[in-house]
């Protein structure tokens, strides 16, 4: 078993990037991602990490550098938040279209306006459809573990897709947690050096990023769509291999006391741990409540979600982003799509909570379950509201 240490989650994430033997780091500092790249730049400057650190002038350039370095076959990493992601959003589509296995940690933060540095999921939801595999993490250990998982998965010849690891800004990035660090020899075994399928090299000239006429564009996109869906068995396989090495097994949909529950909370990200405390309280009071945590956001695990919600009468879906003028929160929208075809589908009540980092306590989850159960009882089966707004 690896060494158990207390560490800030951002520092542990940076240590994982070092252990993953990344060749190129390119990033621009933005709160709350800063500690990750600061620590990486220290590691490189002190000679503790053999990598190129590119100090660029914007996030658009940060990801552009990664596209270039990855295209030459160098394992590349970037990290951002909020406005930074918005600025690099153009390049996110290019990285996935070119099938470059870049890994990015996204310390999730609210998009302005109003300006806010705190946490929610509005940043990642703005690039939801950009074609990257997208994980959500619940605690620091999961962030650390997913750096290795993501590189191995992304670089698999049958995957070749970029990966985003979402971690809630501040809630995770700035807290000190216990970590089980994995020995370097184990990492080296789990994550062999990157062997690119195609790379830019003067001896074998190829073209990346060429123009596509309408006569071939749809075929190119179909191939990309099939690629991300075909990555699903590889994701499961990679998690299995990681679990066999560390004893920590991950699933697309994690459940907590969900098997016989009539009401299920559905969360994504760091809400999961808090909500599980609420579930314990509710269970103590004799309530039939469980929890579903979505770990894999893209490709969305429709089948696993259907399986996990089977038999439930009510879902209380907690979103951390608003689809302004749309169907409520993006998670609830996906959950509804997943279950629409089921004859005995549960009532789905949607809360948007904790936007811009407002605390959501176990007591808040209890209140949301109470409110949803009453609303559904009264016939409001597809309700949506922003939780805790002062009237």
């Amino acid at each position, binding site marked *: 078993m690896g060494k158990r240490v207390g560490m800030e989650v951002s520092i542990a994430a940076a240590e994982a990037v070092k252990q993953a033997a990344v060749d190129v780091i390119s990033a621009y500092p933005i709160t709350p991602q800063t500690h990750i790249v600061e620590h990486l730049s220290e590691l490189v400057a002190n000679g503790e990490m053999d990598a190129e650190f590119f100090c660029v002038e914007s996030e658009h350039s940060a990801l552009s550098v990664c596209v270039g370095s990855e295209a030459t076959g160098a394992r590349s990493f970037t990290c951002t938040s909020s406005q930074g992601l918005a600025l690099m959003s153009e390049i996110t589509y290019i990285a996935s*279209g*070119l*099938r*470059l296995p870049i890994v990015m940690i996204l310390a999730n933060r609210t998009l302005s306006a109003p300006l806010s540095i705190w946490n929610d999921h509005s940043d990642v939801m703005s690039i939801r459809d950009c074609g990257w595999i997208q994980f959500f993490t619940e605690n620091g250990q999961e962030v650390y573990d997913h750096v290795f998982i993501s590189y191995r998965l992304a670089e698999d010849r049958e995957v*070749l897709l970029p990966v985003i690891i979402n971690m809630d800004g501040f809630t995770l990035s700035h807290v000190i947690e216990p970590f089980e660090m994995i020995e370097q020899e184990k990492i080296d075994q789990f994550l062999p050096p990157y062997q690119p*399928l*195609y790379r830019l090299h003067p001896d074998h*000239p*190829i*073209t*990346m990023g*060429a123009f*596509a*006429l309408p*006569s*071939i564009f*749809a*075929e*190119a996109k*179909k*191939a990309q769509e*099939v*690629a991300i869906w075909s990555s699903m068995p590889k994701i499961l396989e990679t998690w299995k291999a990681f679990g066999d090495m560390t004893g920590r097994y991950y699933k697309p949909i994690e459940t907590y006391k969900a098997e016989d529950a009539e009401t299920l909370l559905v969360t994504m990200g760091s809400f999961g741990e808090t909500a599980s405390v609420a579930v314990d309280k509710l269970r103590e009071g004799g309530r039939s409540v469980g929890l579903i945590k979505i770990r894999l956001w893209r490709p969305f695990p429709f089948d696993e979600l259907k399986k996990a919600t089977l038999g439930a009468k009510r879902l209380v879906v907690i979103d951390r982003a608003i689809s302004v003028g749309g169907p409520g929160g993006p998670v609830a929208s996906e959950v509804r799509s997943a279950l629409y075809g089921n004859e005995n589908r549960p009532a789905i009540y949607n809360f948007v909570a904790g936007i811009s980092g407002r605390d959501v306590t176990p007591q808040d989850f209890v209140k949301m379950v109470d409110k949803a159960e009453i609303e559904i009882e009264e016939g409001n089966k597809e309700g949506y509201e922003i939780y805790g707004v002062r009237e």
Partner: protein
Amino acid sequence: MTKPENEWTWKEIPIGNVVLEPGNASQYRTGDWKSLKPILDKEKCIHCGLCYIFCPDMAYNLDEESYFIADLFYCKGCGICAKECPTGAISMVVEEEAK
């Protein structure tokens, strides 16, 4: 020779839409974009090669008689050669009217 784009199935496209054949842009007919084509008056031509130098598509080539002639497979009909020709030997003519 790469097959025409509209014959590729999604399964045949290389991963990441990489183009594996270097320089295959030379197979791309840009000549059908034009509405005007350059006509050379050999009487006025002084063989200076400015048309060859200025052509943005490298469509001009030297023929056996040392005249620079535009390859109409590539020529987009932009008219830069006609504009730059110091003796006015090149004129741009509506393609279907030219014979």
